[in-house]
């Protein structure tokens, strides 16, 4: 081989950088494009003679003004946040004890049940949404935010339980043993010792549950029919049109707001998520 | 002819100012068992990895069989390496592991199997061929790692602390197997360890290293009886050599087993007589370790250790000092500042 070892290493490093940059551009380009479109004047956007990568006219905040002033976008943000908070609450109340029970109190059939619970996460909304639409209607929840508040935990609970199981398993059981020797009941040991210790893991679960809520589309589309009650995920692609016309400027502005903040949060907590997820699957 | 040679071999990692390996000159002999001994951070593993080609030297030369190999990949150097964890391929069977290097060489199947049979026969693991690494015990894994190494008929074996992952009990028998293996096969072995007992037991020669520098190279007897500096003197031997300061520029050393009750040391010359007050004794079955202080004289108050065979029955009560002595030839003298060995001096 004509290349020396040092040369080969430099070449491989250059290739690695090239691949990384290429992929990063390809994957993040739509968001960059959303950002540019948000601030471009409509006349600039729809003028085919202009170079779309440049601002031919001065940037504008018009689309943002339109978005917040004349559409239901703010309403959707509120709906989504409210639903998210409630779903997170319900999920934690049910998943925390369940995860603890599976991690500590159930032994071998607990292991299998844990896997079973996780498998329910794989049952897709596109299979259940038709019967669920009937269930929601019969409960009188159709076209309200409550329909999704009730239904979403059906997939956030399995996911969170499995994740929390991993976090709990990484805590040495000796801590609870010591607490019980000191006089606490098992449940008290759980509530007063394990939960506070796992706060960072619980926070991770909160973030991921919230993102699951914001990302959901099918149920919200199926159960909620009026624009005012919708979530951001459905409202933006479906209702930010007037007739057949897409108002791309405001639409992209909405996309930016709906995606980038979550992106930051997710990236922050990803390492902890991976730790919990790999711990949960290693025996 | 020297099998492995290094000249001025140095490795500095980017951030550290002190070199991980500093200017090492080494020459291994044909068929010898050479041990690289030192505490963690001494650079012994880095040195081994540079010889293997897994680490690139900052400066200096490595020769194998007389040929400069600095720019050669590990594959081209015809060396075999046994890692601390054995690095067995978990998804391959024992047979698969052993023939893997032969496959990489392009050896035809029939020859591969013959070689594998020879290697497994040599190590007595023929019955394990179909098993996967996770089904094997620690000792069996070591043997598989050795079989995989020997099957390529390398010019030198490199071993990185292969016994440290084994149970203490298993270690002694695994050690013996390794020694026998090397003697039978006759290939040069360079063996890294921090355990001085392993080094003394197995090595034909020992390279004692500390902080990246070679302190001494010699046979076990040489490094033990004739240490080049205070580091070597205290690193080898357990309990370590007693070191006592004598005057502004001299340190005197004597090993615990040479610190004996008066009249029992090796005759010849003028023994150094000291009064020893023992305040603590450990009974280890075959021997007794006595911890205490020297009383009176220029070394008054210095802590020392004595080591007697248990067959010597006399009790040394705490509280009263006894007459002890060290034979003249068992006294070693060191420069107080540099720690290096000096000639015999008069004691103040």
């Amino acid at each position, binding site marked *: 081989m004509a290349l020396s070892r040092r040369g080969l290493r430099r070449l491989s490093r250059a290739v690695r950088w090239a691949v990384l940059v290429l992929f990063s551009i390809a994957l993040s380009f739509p968001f960059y494009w959303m950002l540019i479109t948000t601030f471009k004047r409509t006349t600039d956007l729809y003028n085919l003679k202009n170079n779309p990568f440049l601002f031919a006219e001065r940037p504008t905040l018009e689309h943002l003004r339109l978005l917040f002033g004349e559409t239901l976008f703010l309403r959707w943000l509120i709906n989504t946040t409210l639903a998210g908070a409630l779903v997170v609450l319900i999920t934690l109340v049910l998943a925390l004890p369940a995860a603890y029970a599976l991690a*500590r109190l159930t032994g071998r059939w607990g292991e299998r049940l844990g896997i079973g*619970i996780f498998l*329910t996460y794989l049952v897709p909304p596109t299979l259940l949404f038709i*019967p669920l639409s009937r269930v929601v209607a019969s409960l009188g929840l159709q076209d309200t935010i409550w329909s999704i508040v009730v239904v979403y935990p059906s997939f956030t609970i399995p996911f969170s339980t499995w994740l929390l199981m991993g976090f709990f398993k990484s805590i040495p059981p000796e801590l609870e043993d010591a607490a019980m020797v000191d006089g606490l009941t098992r449940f008290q040991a759980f509530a007063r010792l394990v939960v506070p210790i796992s706060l960072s893991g619980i926070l991770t679960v909160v973030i991921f549950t919230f993102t699951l809520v914001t990302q959901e*589309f099918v149920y919200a589309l199926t159960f909620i029919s009026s624009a005012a009650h919708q979530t951001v995920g459905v409202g933006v692609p479906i209702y930010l049109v007037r007739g057949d016309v897409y108002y791309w400027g405001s639409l992209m502005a909405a996309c930016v707001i709906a995606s980038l903040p979550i*992106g930051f949060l997710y990236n922050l907590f990803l390492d902890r998520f991976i730790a919990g997820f790999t711990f949960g699957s290693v025996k | 002819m020297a099998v492995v040679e290094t000249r001025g071999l140095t490795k500095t990692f980017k951030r550290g100012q002190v070199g991980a390996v500093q200017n090492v000159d080494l020459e291994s002999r044909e068929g010898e068992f050479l041990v690289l001994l030192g505490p963690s951070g001494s650079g012994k593993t880095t040195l081994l990895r540079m010889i293997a080609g897994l680490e690139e030297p900052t400066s200096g030369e490595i020769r194998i069989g007389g040929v400069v190999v600095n720019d050669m990949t590990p594959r081209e150097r015809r060396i075999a390496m046994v890692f601390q964890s054995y690095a067995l*391929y978990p998804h391959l069977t024992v047979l698969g592991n052993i023939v893997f290097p032969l496959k990489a060489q392009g050896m035809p199947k029939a020859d591969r199997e013959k070689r594998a049979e020879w290697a497994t026969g040599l190590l007595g693991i023929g019955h394990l061929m179909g098993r996967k690494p996770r089904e094997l015990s620690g000792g069996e894994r070591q043997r598989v790692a050795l079989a995989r190494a020997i099957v390529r008929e390398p010019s030198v074996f490199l071993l990185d602390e292969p016994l440290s992952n084994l149970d203490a009990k298993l270690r002694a028998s695994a050690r013996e197997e390794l020694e026998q293996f090397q003697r039978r096969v006759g290939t040069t072995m360079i063996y890294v360890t921090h355990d001085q007992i392993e080094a003394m037991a197995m090595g034909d020669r020992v390279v004692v290293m500390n902080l990246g520098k070679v302190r001494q190279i010699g046979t076990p007897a040489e490094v033990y009886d004739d240490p080049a500096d205070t580091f070597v003197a205290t690193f080898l031997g357990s309990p370590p050599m007693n070191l006592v300061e004598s005057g502004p520029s001299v340190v005197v050393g004597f090993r615990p087993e040479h610190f004996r009750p008066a009249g029992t040391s090796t005759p010849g010359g003028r023994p150094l007589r000291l009064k020893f007050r023992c305040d603590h004794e450990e009974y280890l079955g075959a021997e007794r370790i006595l911890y205490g202080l020297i009383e009176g004289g220029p070394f008054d108050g210095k802590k020392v250790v004595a080591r007697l065979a248990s067959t010597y029955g006399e009790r040394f009560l705490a509280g009263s000092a006894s007459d002890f002595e060290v034979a003249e030839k068992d006294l070693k003298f060191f420069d107080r500042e540099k720690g290096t060995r000096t000639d015999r001096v008069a004691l103040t």
Partner: protein
Amino acid sequence: MSRSRQRWLGPVMLLPAIVYVLALVGVPFILAFFYAVGDVKVGSTAYHFVGLQNFRSVLENPTFRRALRNSFVFTIISQALVMVGGNILALTLKDAFRGRRLFRFLILLPWVAPVSIGSIGWKWILDSLYSVINWVLVSLHLVKPLDVPMWLGQPTLAMISVILVHTWHVLPFTTVILLAGWTSIPRDIPEAAAVDGAGYFRTLFQITLPMLLPIINVALLFGVIFTFTDMTVIYILTRGGPYDTTQVLPSLAFFTGILGSDLAEGAAISLFLVPLLGVVAWLMLRTAHRAEVT
């Protein structure tokens, strides 16, 4: 604390979650079967058993057969791309370097952002008039201005667009999982392979990839489920068009059952997802058994 009290604490802590999930997953699941063999319609509570009639009419529908085929084509192609791309990306991200966090953030965006948002973003990029891709192609003189590709309007191109958007969306997720696998390979295994004389490709294909197989399985199975059962990308990009050429099972079920109000037929269509889910679940359980993190 008495033994008997200890023994029921576990089940009690577990029960609420199980009941909730069973009620909202198990019950609808069973209901789906009932609907598929009945004649349920929106707005009416009548129910008559009709046997396999719904399934028969569904299977005879050419749109359904097209959707079934599309489901497989989209999933297989996008997962193949995701597997190759994910491994390549994981390799570049495996070793720490400055700025890795920034790249990771950029790479994660397609997965983190709601898929509906990402899809509508792509819709703008692929717009028939204002597509930035077309502008680039025209300025590079690769296509004539009046002859630009109709990314979402022409059947073959629409299918390609949908596959690419699916791939774009799932790639970060798969990369993260594969990355966890790549970083779990002990450093001395590839070193031993190097000493044993294996070159780059032999080490890759005979040592590292086989060791990664359990993780690859997990990533693949998740990816298959996410792609096969997704309707969002298609709903937003093409609404299943042009002329139902990009329909897949889930989107067809939605159009039939919800928009078309034929709950029974919609349920029947969506039930065709079950065999695939069953196979995937079985494969996952098998790899979970064999998964060995060294």
